[in-house]
């Protein structure tokens, strides 16, 4: 019964979204205040309805109601509660309901918190948000309905893919969607601004916190996905340049560009049409990601069950949303620009180069991801593009970006003193060179091994330059000033943390690529493998039962210089429903490097097991880096500047009696 109510709520949400998408838009065009005022209650109602639909679906999964087709196909009574819940978005239909629930959440948030927005801008923004909702709710209702009943209901469900039964992946999709879908707000603001025909500093100030929130969630979401791939797939890799990974990474790159270009609009009223374009493109790329994952036109380890019919629907949605907004852009944007004069050596000049590099990087990743498709469409034959391409094009683009990220924050707006900035970066530059040479020498001075030294030097450069910039801002007449530290805006701290996070991330990327070691051997009990100074002895393996699987658990003792450090217990699980095997790596981490063990198959009759060991130096730095960047985003989001407008408006309201 509840599931029918959920279905009904979603149908109702479609009607509400339709009203939200049209009436306020017309109201804004005609100056009809009553129609415009429809937007806020409609957005809030849409959220309540979508939230109810989502909750009813989740309820069906929790109580294992196998008369619902999706539950029967993807759940099982023996699954732990967490995975019953995450099973809701572990399949295409349910994940779409999560998608629109997040979309309506952002719509409701704009309605509730955007109290300082001009009336027409707010009405139009919410209307665009409503139109996106119309498209996707219709998609769910007509092409991927999760509320379909199954008659007769089976006694037991098929179970969730065991690879997805994992805490990392339970939280990865919601986080990722908060990021993806969060960019819809920037998109709606951009389309609304095009309709208004006006972009100014205030517009940038309204868009920035939403972009920042989406960016923070996307950063953490991608990080969670990478972390999951690292410990669950059993190969010790953390990034595969897989089409689906790229689909989330490309909007991250353009979203990062948007975050930086919005600052230029806010401070200098320049780069307006460019920022609008970035806002449209970032969300469009999120939509493209949704399309790629679900249509089955690209091969990927992550892809949902491919269904070309769905692909056609999503492609039509893409054509309308992206094509429509970019057509509007082509018509309206030319009249928009004209900001101030732009000196090449200035903060805004630096941010412009940042944008060029980030969007070029996004374009190259997009090209690599789509190249097989494009080549096929042009009858150039079928080909695949792998990580050598991505590494070859990505590193040369990131290197100048990181160098610039060290200098840019020290440049003043309008006209900067490059020499002065470089003077202050002497320590950073010197240290980077020291790190470069030291890493190179430690690597044996091999001419081919310059990459590791280069990466570490870049990280040192960015970290020291970022700290230098922070010191220059908090330095009083007599050393560091507490007062200045406290008064420094949170958004400045946000930048410092995010850039430091980037530096730590680079350490992780470089170290993990350069010094990873790997051994695969068949071990009898008592035999050992030596790797990176550790001696890993295989003690025994035993069968252990789990809630919905059986596992072979290996026991390995890790010692260094004869001293036992820890034991590692990797598992090989065989799930009962669906019958599938997964590897559960055991990881011993020093906080700087990981020792990563995987137990393979039994080998012969003497109790020998195939054992895979990886030494993964600096991999933890990847997670620290991502967390630091996400934390930087949150700190910046808490800046009072983002709330100032709201506070001022509240004060005005207090003075003016209610109508």
């Amino acid at each position, binding site marked *: 019964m509840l599931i029918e109510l959920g279905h009904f709520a979603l149908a109702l949400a479609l009607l509400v979204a339709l009203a939200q998408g049209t009436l306020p838009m017309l109201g804004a065009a005609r100056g009809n205040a009553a129609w415009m005022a429809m937007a806020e209650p409609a957005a809030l109602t849409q959220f309540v309805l979508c939230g109810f639909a989502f909750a009813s679906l989740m309820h069906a999964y929790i109580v294992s109601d196998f008369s619902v087709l999706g539950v029967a196909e993807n759940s099982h009574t023996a699954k732990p509660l967490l995975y019953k819940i995450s099973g809701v978005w572990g399949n295409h239909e349910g994940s779409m309901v999560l998608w629109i629930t997040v979309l309506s959440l952002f719509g409701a948030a704009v309605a509730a918190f955007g109290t300082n927005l001009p009336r027409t801008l707010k009405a139009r923004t919410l209307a665009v948000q409503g139109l996106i909702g119309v498209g996707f709710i219709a998609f769910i209702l007509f092409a991927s309905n999760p509320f379909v009943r199954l008659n007769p209901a089976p006694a037991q469900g098929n179970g969730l893919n065991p690879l997805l039964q994992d805490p990392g992946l339970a939280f990865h999709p919601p986080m990722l969607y908060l990021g993806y879908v969060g960019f819809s707000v920037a998109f709606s603001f951009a389309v609304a601004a095009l309709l208004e025909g006006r972009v100014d500093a205030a517009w940038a100030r309204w868009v920035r916190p939403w972009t920042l929130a989406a960016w923070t969630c996307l950063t953490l979401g991608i990080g969670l996905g990478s972390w999951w791939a690292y410990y669950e797939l059993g190969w010790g890799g953390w990034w595969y340049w897989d089409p689906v990974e790229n689909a989330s990474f490309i909007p991250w790159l353009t979203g990062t560009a948007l975050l930086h270009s919005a600052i230029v609009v806010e401070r200098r009223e320049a780069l307006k049409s460019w920022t609008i374009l970035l806002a449209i493109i970032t969300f469009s790329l999120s939509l493209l990601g949704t399309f790629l994952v679900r249509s089955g036109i690209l091969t990927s380890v992550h892809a949902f069950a491919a269904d070309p019919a769905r692909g056609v629907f999503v492609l039509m949605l893409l054509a309308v949303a992206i094509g429509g907004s970019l057509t509007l852009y*082509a018509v309206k944007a030319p009249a928009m620009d004209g900001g101030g004069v732009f000196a090449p050596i200035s903060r805004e000049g630096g941010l412009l180069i940042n944008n060029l590099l980030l969007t070029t990087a996004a374009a190259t990743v997009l090209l690599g991801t789509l190249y097989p*498709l*494009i080549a096929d469409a042009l009858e150039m034959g079928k080909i695949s593009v792998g990580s050598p391409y991505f590494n070859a094009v990505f590193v040369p683009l990131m290197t100048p970006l990181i160098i610039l990220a060290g200098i840019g924050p020290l440049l003043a707006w309008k006209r900067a003193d490059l020499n002065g900035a470089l003077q202050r970066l002497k320590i950073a530059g010197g240290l980077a060179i020291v790190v470069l040479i030291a890493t190179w020498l430690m690597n044996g001075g091999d001419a081919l091994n310059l990459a590791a030294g280069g990466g570490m030097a870049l990280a040192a450069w960015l970290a020291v330059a970022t700290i230098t910039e922070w010191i220059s801002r908090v330095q009083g007449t007599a050393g560091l000033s507490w007062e200045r530290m406290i008064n420094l805006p949170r958004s400045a701290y946000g930048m410092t943390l995010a850039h430091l996070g980037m530096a730590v991330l680079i350490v992780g990327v470089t170290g993990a690529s350069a010094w990873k070691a790997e051994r695969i051997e068949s071990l009898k009990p008592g035999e050992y493998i030596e790797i990176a100074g550790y001696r890993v002895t295989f003690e025994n393996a035993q069968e252990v039962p789990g809630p919905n699987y059986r596992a072979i658990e290996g026991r390995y003792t890790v010692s260094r210089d004869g001293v036992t450090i820890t034991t590692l217990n990797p598992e090989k699980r065989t799930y009962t429903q669906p019958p599938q095997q997964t590897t559960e790596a055991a990881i011993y981490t020093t906080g700087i490097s990981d020792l990563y063990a995987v137990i393979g*198959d039994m080998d012969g009759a003497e109790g020998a097991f195939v054992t895979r060991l990886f030494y993964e130096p600096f991999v933890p730095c990847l997670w620290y880096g991502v967390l630091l960047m996400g934390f930087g985003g949150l700190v910046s989001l808490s800046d009072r500047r983002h709330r100032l407008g709201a506070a001022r408006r509240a004060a005005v309201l207090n003075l003016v009696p209610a109508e």
Partner: protein
Amino acid sequence: MTTTSAKRWPFVIPVAVIAALIGAFGKRLLDVNRGDDPHLIPSVLLNTPMPEFDLAPLPGREPGLATRDLKGSVSLVNVWGSWCVACLAEHPTLMALQRENAIPIQGIAWRDSPSASLAWLAQRGDPYARIGQDPKSVAAISLGVTGAPETFVVDATGVIRYKHIGPITPEVWQTTLAPLIAQLKK
């Protein structure tokens, strides 16, 4: 509005690019609908001769595998390892193919110790005609192997006609490989 058309055209580029992209996607979708399997995409080696390699046999299990052995009849070249879980999943299918004498299956024992490979085969059965050991990924790299199992369909002239990534299930055999092989044998 006073903007000239010369200033206007850069703003049209984004919508033009997206129109082209959507056209390409649409075409690809139609192809997929017509049954053109996207899994056909990934190999640069498609329709090129098998790269040169000469792999030693597993000790006591002759013969080994070299490129020249692949000429004369249509065959499968299966990259596997005793450490590989998915290889275990496709093993029954390979055994069935061998029993039915459907096609010679040549094995490449990839990144494996000879003893582990031999023990695996002794315990579970040996579907292979020839096996070459490739502990250092010599052949695997030139073949562009991304993981195990991977299977190449090689025609009688030694040219790669298809690459299947992942385990061969009975379904994959019936719907994809068997028709292709029947065609190649003509």
